[in-house]
């Protein structure tokens, strides 16, 4: 069966160049980067080369890049590493963050911190003024993501960075879903901390990084050796780090080479075709600036969960909401925070493109989607006839 993968916000395939770059570091150049001897030196050199590549993607110094096991660890390191629970620090974050930030913030609150969650508007954007208003004398950290994983909506991080600097408050941004899709320049963002995940940008799973601005004092999460300048103990994941470095290089080249324009055109074609050929549909976050690879579509009268299963059985991998521990779909906290009706939040589908996707992939998905939607609606207990639906004002 033909299978097309349109769930690149969940994870991406490792690009062939990335795999090639990693390959020597499993068996031939297997050294521990902390070792004194030749083998260790080879590994160390590879790690530092990769650090340089990541720094280039971020526009920062190599020494400001800390490798982690992934985006979740990077987010945890930022929040738990910076916040002093005993001092009673105040944290500002948003209602649409990834759970790696939201659940860390929740834990900080349980430990005694004050946490303020700023809302988003109907397009899924944080208003920087809300953040300004939430500032308190004891505010120590603002954490707002750069691009949302479900809608792709870009947050006004530059403005937030500016007001954070004015208020002398640390600013962390989870850029896991932005990396490789839009330029990331920490100076323009004005952030002190920024999280990356390898596997969202065609590097392998199990590697990530946290940008930590020079002079920012972080308590480590993991204690042990003095790896990563004592900010993250544990023998370096050399193949993963090399993969992330290569993926960062490729991301820089792709951004310069028009790859995002290509994917943006494919994404726009998906949206246009769906909106034109299937009634009672829409785009969540439409009108807001978004990463070019993501679209979050809603289909009236349909459960997104059933749609994802039906599409998968036809060979199209898509996503909706978030998976809970059993693997069932939970209502999306992001769409709910945008004020969407529960039915609309449940009837939404995320399609996200990656570099491996072609125009033919999109053709295939668009050839499958209308039939799947038609069957789901035909069998939906709440489906109204098209004539009626056409006049239904959808919010």
């Amino acid at each position, binding site marked *: 069966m033909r299978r097309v993968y349109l769930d690149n916000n969940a994870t991406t395939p490792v690009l062939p160049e990335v795999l090639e770059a990693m390959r020597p570091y499993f068996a031939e150049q297997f050294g521990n980067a902390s070792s004194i001897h030749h083998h260790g030196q080879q590994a160390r050199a590879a790690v530092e080369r990769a650090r340089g590549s990541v720094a280039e993607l971020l526009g920062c110094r190599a020494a400001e890049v800390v490798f982690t096991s992934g985006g979740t660890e990077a987010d945890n390191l930022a929040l738990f590493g910076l916040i002093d629970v005993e001092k009673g620090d105040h944290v500002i974050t948003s209602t649409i963050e990834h759970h790696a930030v939201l659940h860390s913030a929740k834990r900080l609150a349980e430990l005694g911190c004050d946490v303020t969650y700023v809302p988003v508007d109907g397009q899924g954007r944080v208003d920087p003024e809300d953040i300004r208003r939430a500032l308190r004398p004891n505010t120590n950290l603002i954490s707002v993501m750069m691009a949302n994983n479900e809608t792709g909506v870009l947050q006004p991080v530059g403005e937030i960075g500016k007001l954070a600097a004015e208020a002398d408050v640390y600013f962390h941004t989870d850029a896991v879903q932005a990396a490789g899709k839009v330029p990331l320049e920490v100076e323009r963002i004005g952030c002190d901390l920024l999280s990356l995940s390898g596997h969202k940008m065609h590097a392998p799973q199990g590697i990530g990084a946290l940008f930590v601005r020079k002079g920012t004092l972080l308590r480590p999460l993991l204690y042990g050796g003095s790896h990563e300048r004592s900010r993250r103990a544990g023998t370096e994941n050399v193949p993963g780090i090399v993969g992330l470095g290569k993926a960062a290089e490729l991301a820089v080249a792709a951004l310069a080479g028009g790859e995002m324009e290509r994917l943006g055109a494919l994404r726009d074609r998906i949206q246009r075709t769906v909106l034109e050929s299937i009634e009672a549909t829409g785009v969540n976050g439409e009108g807001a600036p978004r990463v070019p690879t993501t679209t979050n579509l809603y289909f009236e009268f349909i459960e997104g*969960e*059933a749609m994802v*299963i*039906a599409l*998968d059985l036809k060979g199209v991998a898509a996503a909706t909401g978030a998976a809970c521990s*059993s693997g069932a779909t939970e209502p999306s906290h992001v769409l709910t925070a945008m004020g969407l009706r529960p039915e609309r939040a449940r009837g939404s589908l995320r399609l996200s493109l990656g570099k491996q996707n072609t125009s033919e992939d999109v053709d295939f998905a668009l050839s499958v989607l209308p039939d799947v939607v038609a069957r789901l609606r035909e069998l*939906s207990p709440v489906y109204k006839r098209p004539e009626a639906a056409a006049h239904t004002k959808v919010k």
Partner: protein
Amino acid sequence: MTESGMIAVAMSGGVDSSAVAALLRAEGRPLVGLTMQLWNQRRLAGQPGMPEAVQGRCCSLDDVYDARRVAETLGIPYYVVNHEERFERDVVRPFVQEYLSGRTPIPCSLCNNHIKFDQLLVTARQIGAESVATGHYARVEFDSGRGRWLLKRALDRSRDQSYFLFGLTQEQLSRTRFPLGEMRKEEVREVARRHGLALAEKPDSQEICFVPGGDYKRFIDAYLAEQGETPAETSGDLVTTGGEVVGEHAGVQNFTVGQRKGLGVATGSPLYVLQIHGDTRQVVVGGDQELYSRTLRARDLNWISIAELREPLRVQAKIRHRHEPAAATVEPAGGAEAVARVTFDQPQRAITPGQAVVFYDDDLVVGGGWIA
């Protein structure tokens, strides 16, 4: 019928539904495995009277893990589908309400009627399946003579679950498969072993799936506390059939008809719960012989082998899961179409409101309803 003829197997992670998947796989049918996420076990953890970490059976991660492993072993697509909202609305809430009203509910039948053969069937059809197969011990077949889909007891009567399935409509039955209806449990385990399924020796589950440890009273308290609802006052008097007050009780939900323990009244002869009056909160107690009665009223009837009940019909009627069907006559009662009167030839012990009464003609399920 869809082009594919695909069947959705409702997989619980137990031996029975896993064997169903294995049997249908061996037939070469296109299959999809579905597990329903119905209840979040962590929800009531830490509520008053509940342990911090609640490990119930329903939707436990272990069961999902087992089901997923089976699907993987058999090489069939598998998904977990979230029906928590409907389950709470159509099963959990009514379960709590019934107890608070002095009745003894059967959540499994509610789940079959509202979730498994309704919501899950809709989902299954939406994703391209034509029918749902489950691990129930019962048989379903089409009778061309009557032009009706029939529900029959399992060949292995000790395993028969047709009692819980009386609410299935003709449409639902036409899209339902019970591949274990002609098998014995040992044969089912053998199927699982033969297909290399790791869970072949997994013990049967008995308790209500969403009530950990089977303590429904604690569950009701914890659920109401979680909902922030002040429980309605349900305490009241224990009275005899003559109206004499012989004691007090802490709530009608703590009783079921026929119950002997926990009355807190010492008398010369054993006392049993005879009736529970939700409105006056009185619990009527009396001797064993007073538990027997010959008649009951059934509401919300569903007919399977017949289109409707027009005149008195001789049946064997079963009034609880562990009850040997007894000879009775069922007849339409009053003007209300969906009410029937059942008169047993011999008095039956502990006819319990909230339970189902299911009418049989030998192996055939004629229909059934809820005991009023």
